[in-house]
């Protein structure tokens, strides 16, 4: 019995972690380039709504789910473009612009939802699939091979983004722009262009994460559906020390705590659930407090715009 519960908790944690993973990897790219994007949460909300709406209008099974996600990526990239324009081109204060983008995204998503949908409606969305042979392996099968296809796509993005960041010329430029923009500029790297590319990429990833949330995870849209996940993802980037694998572990740890908290309510274990709800967030604070060296790993010009004509 206990063994089954534990397996169930772990199996439920994996799809939960995907939202954090997708936003986290996107956020890692723009922080590596030196831009601090707090607006991920707002972009996620717009992405969640657009994905949901496309699926809701099309009503044609799997194809419309993917179309919804592609639409969400497009809208996310557009919102990322706004952020890039304001923070990179106009060199505005990044933290405040991020919060403004969060409000903008929440407002737009909430308004469109009220106007076009109104009440709570559910969609079919992407169902979890059981991979034929592999899913019948006793424990590992349930944990690893009973999820929807986006879970595997997201996990594949971890090595892909590592490769992109460490082994390609573009990735090295990104890192250079985030640690020594003046040196990168001297070597002929267009600092602002690389930063804008990173912010737009992060926006697209956040839009996809939002669409994952509404299409694959909850199969509906509700007001404030993201519930702070975008901000947690920013914390997870710090926790993961700006590495894709670190973010993966952080996302898994956090969603494991979340899933544990949920199962306490489901199985009716005699434990005050109010405390259990706090548990994942407490875990993040504790872990962040004890990973004190993470500031050293941070991109050194994080949050500072680059002025080409000025001295440092």
């Amino acid at each position, binding site marked *: 019995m206990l063994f089954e519960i534990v397996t169930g908790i772990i199996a439920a944690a994996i799809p939960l972690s995907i939202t954090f993973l997708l936003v986290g990897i996107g956020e890692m790219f723009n922080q590596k380039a030196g831009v601090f994007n707090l607006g991920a949460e707002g972009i996620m909300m717009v992405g969640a709504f657009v994905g949901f709406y496309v699926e809701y209008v099309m009503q044609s099974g799997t194809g419309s789910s993917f179309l919804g996600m592609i639409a969400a990526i497009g809208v996310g990239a557009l919102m990322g473009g706004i952020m890039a324009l304001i923070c990179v081109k106009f060199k505005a204060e990044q933290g405040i612009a991020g919060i403004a983008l969060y409000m903008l995204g929440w*407002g737009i998503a909430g308004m469109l939802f009220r106007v076009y949908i109104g009440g709570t409606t559910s969609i079919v969305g992407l169902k979890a699939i059981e991979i034929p042979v592999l899913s019948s392996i006793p424990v590992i099968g349930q944990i690893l091979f009973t999820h929807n296809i986006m879970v595997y796509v997201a996990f594949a993005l971890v090595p892909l983004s590592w490769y992109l960041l460490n082994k390609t010329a573009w990735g090295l430029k990104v890192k250079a722009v985030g640690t020594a923009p003046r040196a990168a500029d001297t070597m002929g790297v267009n600092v602002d262009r690389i930063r804008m590319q990173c912010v737009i990429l992060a926006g697209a990833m956040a839009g996809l994460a939002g669409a994952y949330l509404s299409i694959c995870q909850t199969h509906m849209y509700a007001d404030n559906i993201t519930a702070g996940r975008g901000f947690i993802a920013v914390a997870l980037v710090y926790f993961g020390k700006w590495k894709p694998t670190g973010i993966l572990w952080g996302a898994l740890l956090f969603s494991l705590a979340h899933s544990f908290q949920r199962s306490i309510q489901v199985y009716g274990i005699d434990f005050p659930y109010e405390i259990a709800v706090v548990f994942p967030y407490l875990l993040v604070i504790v872990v962040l407090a004890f990973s004190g060296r993470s500031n050293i790993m941070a991109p050194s010009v994080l949050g500072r715009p680059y002025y080409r004509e000025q001295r440092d």
Partner: protein
Amino acid sequence: MALFGGLHPLGAIPASIVFGLLIVGAYMMQRAVQVPAYIILAIQGLIILAIVTSSVFISKKSMKAKVLAKLKKFTGGKDAV
């Protein structure tokens, strides 16, 4: 909000009054003509984005001096920033 008030404690008062008015107006609008109150959240976001972006254009020296002089007059001769 602090930036909106020109980074001055007194500036925060009119800034928060404006945002408060927006929120109250949003709920009134929702009751009267069924426009979702969320629209105000989006508008507030846009306002803040515009303010944040405007600081770039103000940072030109002459503009900054002009704005500071105005603020100084407004706060009664004390240094504004």
